[in-house]
């Protein structure tokens, strides 16, 4: 370096000559005369510390916090928009279907003119199980709404949780508008739920039916009518028909629609639980139902078929239930859980045969117990006396023994491992979400006759 080694010449040159140089004079020169080795050692120590810091920083750089790059949250979808994104270009679409009239905040994809659906022939996706040509006589088809599991709440508010608990996939709604009378238009609202499996449909249907109301089960349909409403579970669909009033015309229309749907929807074989209770135990089909989750208010109790053993008009509430599992070990474990569950509600009433621990309910003085048999768990709940309970359990055991091979083959555990109860395994939230503004009418026209059954309410 050119400036190194230049010694100051005292007194030479003006003060200004120092300012002429670009680089500083005597940059590295110092006046000390003695040097110590201890400085070198301390300095080397700090040098080592510096290297340590650099090494630490490098190591940190190579080990990033994984959550910084975790994109799994981005992949979890939000609710998809409703079906039917709008076409963008005008050419090819009938100009008369402009939507300027619907501009005030209609939620995307909920309501579309029925004419479009029928006209272009792409009916199925938008109508779901609703058969074409429902309008007859004085009734015209109104708007069809289609909703997915996540947007159902837009139409039915808090009831969405109940259907989600049964694994609802979609909802299609249709209002048939009838003639005016006395200044009021009559109409019939149809709600068609696709619950993916027939057992879910039956479970949902039974959950909403008050026990005092008898249902009819024939050729694959389970249904009942009640004043101005009708309810149908067929195949994997559960359909509700609610008329606007109880005038004869409306009631007749409701019945007519029920028949139309019974013919048009594809029926399915009843689930294996029905074969068990109806064929083996000779119970009426209307006494059997399916609970997808949270049976008897037990969090672990899922995929349960149960049947009313007491007659409908008796004050007893005795039920038998059966659950299919993958193998005998799983069944034994599940039976133990049931036993514990019952035990939490009362005191032991004495052991039974086959190691069944009978429990007497502390409030109701009824007897309950569960047992594992091969890969099933069977049990009796709410029996009025211990002898009755034991007798019923024996019948169940014999029924399993007599179960035909075909039914055994069908008796597989339902595939879902997640509890389709709404959000993240908890019961559906009690607070209804905020209503979007300017909703078209979203309350069912009349509340379903009778409250939902007591059991229905604690089973979801």
């Amino acid at each position, binding site marked *: *370096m*050119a400036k*190194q*080694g230049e010694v*100051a010449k005292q007194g030479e040159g003006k*003060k200004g000559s120092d300012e002429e140089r670009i*680089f*500083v*004079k005597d*940059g590295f020169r*110092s*006046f*000390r*005369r*003695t*040097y*110590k*080795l201890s*400085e*070198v050692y*301390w*300095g*080397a120590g*700090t040098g080592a510390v*510096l290297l340590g*810091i*650099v090494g630490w*920083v490098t190591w*940190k*750089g*190579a*080990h*990033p*916090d994984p959550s*910084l790059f*975790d994109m799994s*949250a*981005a992949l*979890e*979808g*939000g*609710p*998809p*928009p409703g079906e039917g994104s*709008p*076409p*963008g*270009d*005008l050419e090819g679409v009938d100009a008369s279907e*402009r*939507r*300027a009239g619907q*501009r005030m905040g209609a939620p*995307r994809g909920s309501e579309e003119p029925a004419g479009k659906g029928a006209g272009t022939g792409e009916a199925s996706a938008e109508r779901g199980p609703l058969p074409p040509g429902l309008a007859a006589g004085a009734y015209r088809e109104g708007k069809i709404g289609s909703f997915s599991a*996540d947007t159902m*709440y837009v139409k039915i508010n808090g009831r969405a949780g109940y259907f989600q608990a049964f694994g609802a996939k979609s909802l299609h709604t249709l209002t048939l508008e009838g003639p005016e009378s006395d200044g009021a238009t009559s109409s019939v609202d149809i709600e068609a739920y696709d619950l993916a499996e027939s057992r879910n449909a039956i479970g949902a249907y039974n959950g909403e039916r008050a026990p005092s109301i008898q249902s009819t089960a024939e050729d694959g349909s389970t249904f009942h009518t009640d004043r101005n409403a009708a309810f149908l579970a067929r195949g994997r669909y559960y359909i509700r028909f609610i008329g606007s009033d109880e005038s004869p015309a409306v009631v007749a229309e409701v019945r007519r629609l029920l028949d139309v749907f019974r013919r048009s929807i594809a029926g399915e074989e009843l689930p294996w639980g029905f074969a068990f209770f109806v064929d083996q135990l000779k119970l009426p089909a209307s006494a059997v139902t399916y609970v997808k989750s949270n049976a008897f208010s037990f969090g672990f109790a899922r995929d349960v078929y149960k049947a009313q053993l007491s007659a409908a008009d008796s004050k007893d509430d005795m039920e038998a239930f059966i659950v299919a599992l993958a193998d005998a070990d799983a069944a034994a474990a599940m039976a133990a859980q049931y036993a514990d569950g019952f035990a939490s509600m009362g005191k032991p009433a004495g052991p039974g045969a086959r190691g069944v621990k009978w429990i007497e309910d502390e409030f109701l003085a009824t007897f309950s117990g569960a047992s594992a048999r091969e890969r099933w768990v069977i049990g009796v709940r709410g029996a009025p006396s211990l002898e009755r309970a034991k007798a019923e359990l024996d019948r169940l055991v014999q029924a399993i023994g007599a179960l035909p091979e075909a039914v055994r083959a069908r008796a597989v555990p339902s595939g879902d491992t997640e509890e389709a109860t709404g959000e*993240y395994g908890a019961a559906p939230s009690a607070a209804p*979400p*905020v209503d*979007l503004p300017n909703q078209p009418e979203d309350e069912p026209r009349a509340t379903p006759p009778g409250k939902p059954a007591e059991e229905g309410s604690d089973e979801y």
Partner: protein
Amino acid sequence: MKRLPVIQSVPRLIPKAIQEATQPNRDGSPWYARVLRITTWRIVSQAAFFGLFMFLLWVSWFSRLGGYPASLFLELDPLVTFATALSTHTVYRWLWRALWILIPTLILGRVFCGWICPYGTLHQFMGWLFNVRRNKDNIDVNRYRPIFQFKYYLLTVFLVLSAFGALQIGLLDPICLLTRSVVTTIQPAWDAALPASLSSLASSPGAPHPRVFSGAWFVGFLLIGLVGLNLVIPRFFCRVLCPLGAFLGTLSRFALVRIDRDLTKCTDCNLCMRHCEGASDPQEALRKSECFVCFNCIDDCPEDALAFRVAPVPVHEKIIGSLKEGTAFLFGRRVISQLPETVIKPPDVPRRRWLFAGLAGVLAYPFLRYSKAVNAKSYSAKAIRPPGSVAEPEFLERCIKCDQCINVCPTNVLQPSTLAEGGLEGLWTPVMDFRTGFCQLNCTLCSEVCPTGAIQKIDLRKKLGKAPHAEAGPVRLGTAFFDRGRCLPWAMETPCVVCEEVCPTSPKAIGTYEEEITRWDGKKVLLNQPYMRPELCIGCGICEHECPVQDQPAVYVTAIGESRSKDRSLLLGAPETQKVKS
């Protein structure tokens, strides 16, 4: 001797220089005792920390960040920790690392200022490089001056303000100041100067537009000014203005190890002050609160009278005899120096002046806080804070205006706030300007690098409102509004709908109504007319950024509806329960 031009002389001078350097010293000690003396190590340390500082700022970028502690220096800064502890009563996240500086300070004194502080290194280097003084002037300029008290007043005002909840240390704290200056002025200049082949060395590579920062001119002016003041008084900022220096100085009063002057060797030549960085009077009673432990005095003393000793005994009373007559003796040796003072002088601030500074701090708080710009009544609608920010009064308790978030933001949407947007209290705090960028949906970098928690660390799940944060919903920065008088499909019969196209949420927060119209010239055209779905909008601003009506966008985001503050909610229901069921 005729000087050769540098190019030709270097090959000859290097071996010569090496040969000269490896001569043993005149006192017999080996050559490495001189070449590797303590000041050499200090220079190495200063260079290393400066390089580390610049590296960590350079590496604050999406593709480079990895696990680097990008805000390390800010976390090491004891004043940041102390002041935020005063204002928030907590020590956030990594701020405990300040102990690594505090403890050596309590033992050794202001080693931070002399060995670590990158801003101090910058001042010292510039002062050394452009120094044109000869020895006598060097000595004069390094004497202690009363104006050096000013930093203690500043510190008092800042700390009192912090105790009240207005954190303003970031205005003058050296690490914050240097970070801010590098981010807004030096890094863009560096990026612009790089040739295309070296573009991977840019601080913000891979962006189609050069980065811009509001008010960068002022920050640059301040930087050049403060660095330029080193030509007047060396390390002017460190001696006169630095609040961190004042803080460490107050603490180092009790330091165990200090520069000790041997009265029996010192000839009062004053050469020790030639390059004294702290102007701490080593030639008489050392002002430990000013001493930077730079060891330049030891390097310059021809008599070996100075040493760095543990708890040296105060010797003033132990002198036997008379100094004036030259018969003074100390521990059996003759005292040479005429200045027998070696007792440490505390920070030379009269008590009354401390009180004045405290009072100024107490008054400054209401003056700042009630000047409209930062209150619930009249907050600036365009002061939109980064995602993860705490609500506004708490934000001002935490933000140290370091601008690290602005550094790391990939889209250049974060800008230092101007006086108009946030007043003095909000000056240089981060706000979003959607004309320069937008907030990317899946990015949480700003929350990662914020050292004080003004932007709380959030992970992507929290930002997007996925499980387990679904109840609270996504983080909303504000809400977008349509100005239908400026929007092309609404007011100008012209199709467009870029806003809806780029809206990142699913379902989109912008919906469209279709309307087919016949224009003034008879053409039929289908217009997609956008409308807002406020319960879905997260205020990311990409709609405003992409709107072609660039001078005053037809869709714009304002701070209302932001989820960090209940005061600023828009729709019914507290922000926490406002969600679309997912």
